[in-house]
């Protein structure tokens, strides 16, 4: 009992007086455009607020801090830091591991932080500018930590993050969301930039490019190896597809998706009579469709208000703030 892209396209075609398709892989040009508009409308409805239907939860593991005193630097640009301890680097490292390397060139650079990429479990490619050259010996002190991690590909934005442990020196932590500036200020005010511990803070600061725009999170302190569990709002499914995809929007608001798509369609292509005589252009009809879409938007936005009236009106202010500020769900 959930609406698919084909079902809503069929309904939209019936409304727009287009031939009703029986499959998604052989659409007419107009039906294809209508499906695109349905996809846009679905994204718009999901973007109205942080709906409960977009909530998700998942987890990932961090990779621990490592250090040693036997590193060497090879190559001539790009340089490679090698002879690290076994399995110091992990293959998930993607150009964001951070390392400090002892200054063997006596230029006073032993506190600078270089970014490295995974080459093997015991070596990494230096990505940052490097003017110290190579070092054949295997006697350099090094410290490595990975503070950045990709989030799930369907993450739109994060609501909360946990690092829960039961160990003697670690505790369940509710990570505090902070700005990137705050993280860097914290780091600059301590003696060691790459300081490892259970993370206390996180910042979702980077959105990858490409079709998924994968979000990336940064922790501080640089984490131990641990499981991070987080809750988030997902991105809506892409309905413009030749295979069956379910709408994220609850059934009660599917009419809103339909009206929003029809508004786009009528205002783009008019109400042409491809399937019969019934589709003459009628400005009043466009107004009606727009109004209907506006009414359903109101219903979606009002849901929080209706529910809020039922919450107790006492100093439980955090409840209202949490729901109203887009930090959580809206019932």
């Amino acid at each position, binding site marked *: *009992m959930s609406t698919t892209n084909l079902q809503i396209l069929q309904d939209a075609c019936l409304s727009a007086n287009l031939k009703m398709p029986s499959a998604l892989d052989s659409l007419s040009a107009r039906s294809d455009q209508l499906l695109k508009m349905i996809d846009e409308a679905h994204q718009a409805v999901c973007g109205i607020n942080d709906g409960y239907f977009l909530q998700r939860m998942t987890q990932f593991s961090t990779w621990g801090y490592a250090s040693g005193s036997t590193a060497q630097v090879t190559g001539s640009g790009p340089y490679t830091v090698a002879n690290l301890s076994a399995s110091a680097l992990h293959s998930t490292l993607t150009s964001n591991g951070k390392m400090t390397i002892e200054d063997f060139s006596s230029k006073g650079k032993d506190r600078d932080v270089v970014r490295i990429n995974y080459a093997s479990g015991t070596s990494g490619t230096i990505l940052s500018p490097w003017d110290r050259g190579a070092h054949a010996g295997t006697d350099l002190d090094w410290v490595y930590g990975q503070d950045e991690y990709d989030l799930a590909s369907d993450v739109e934005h994060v609501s909360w993050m946990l690092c829960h442990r039961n160990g003697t020196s670690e505790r*369940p932590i509710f990570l505090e969301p902070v700005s990137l500036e705050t993280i860097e200020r914290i780091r600059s005010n301590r003696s060691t930039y790459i300081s490892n511990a259970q993370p206390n803070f996180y910042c979702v600061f980077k959105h990858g490019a490409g079709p998924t725009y994968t979000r990336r999170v940064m922790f501080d302190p640089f984490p131990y190896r641990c499981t991070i569990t987080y809750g988030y709002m997902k991105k809506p499914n892409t309905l413009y597809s030749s295979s069956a995809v*379910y709408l994220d929007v609850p059934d009660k608001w599917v*009419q809103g998706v339909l009206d929003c798509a029809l508004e786009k369609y009528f205002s783009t292509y008019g109400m042409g009579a491809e399937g019969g005589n019934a589709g003459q252009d009628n400005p009043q009809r466009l107004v*009606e469709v727009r109004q209907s879409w506006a009414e359903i938007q109101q219903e979606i936005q009002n*849901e929080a208000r209706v529910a809020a009236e039922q919450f107790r009106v006492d100093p439980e202010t955090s409840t209202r703030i949490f729901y109203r500020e887009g930090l959580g769900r809206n019932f």
Partner: protein
Amino acid sequence: MAYTALDLVNLALRRAGDETQVTTLASATDHALFLTRALDYTHKRICGMASWDWLRAATEIQLYPVLGGTATITGTALSSLSSTDGTLSYDGAADPVSPYIGAWVQTSSGSGENYRITAVGSNSACTLNDYYGSNGSGQTVTIAQDGFDLPSDFDRPLNADSFVTAPWAMEWRTPEDFLRARALYTGRRTGLIVQGKPQSYTLWGINTASAEANKRMRLFVDPFPDVGETVVIHYFKKPSTDLTSDSAYPLIPEKDHDVLIAGTLYRFFRDRLVDLNRAGAQKAAFVDGIRRMLGQSERTSDRPTMQPTNYRS
């Protein structure tokens, strides 16, 4: 007596001026097909519009206890679970379903890391999201579940204070408050897995492979239940079946079926016949009907209502 979906579509067909009645919705075409779908959408929309008294429902939720015991762990595979508290209650389906999916796992190996169960293969075997400890048999494990599925017709809680009832007190917390209460700095909690009678609860969305279930929420409780007790929830439900089969009944009370018909015909006249005059008349009837429905309330309503003082006597 309530109308079925077939009755309502035929009623709408007559009101639309179409003399031809249909005998089944399964093979409906053209006008009957449009009306069937519009009826279903309108029904779902009306049910979600307000906290209708007639959508109030109650059901029981089974909690599952913390499992303490021993197991073999190799990589991320946990097997040979032996616990006197119960099993993973794997139902044997091709797509593994278990009340312990998503549960937290703590082992005797390592530094107290908590892992999470991502799949269950049998009553005594499951897969963890990761594992950093040493492999081997006879490891002490604690498996604790705090999230429990809500019914498929769950739309939203009745309200915060009386959503969950149990023979003991339980308090609602927002998701953030709930999670902060488990933390060291804000909750003075030194370990995640604390067993006992649940005292607080919250809701959060779930992710499963099922499209419908994806829109559902889970009830989360804390502390982790030490025994598998049952709690009662009160909620507003939503239609759990489409109004597209002949014998399906709407959730809307009989006296308001005309509102459902008006909403359906509005869309039919607007988009199928493109008769804006008739569409306008149906829209007005629909809006009036919704106003009338909003004005109705049960004496025992959970909505804010104004009552004569003698109602309380």
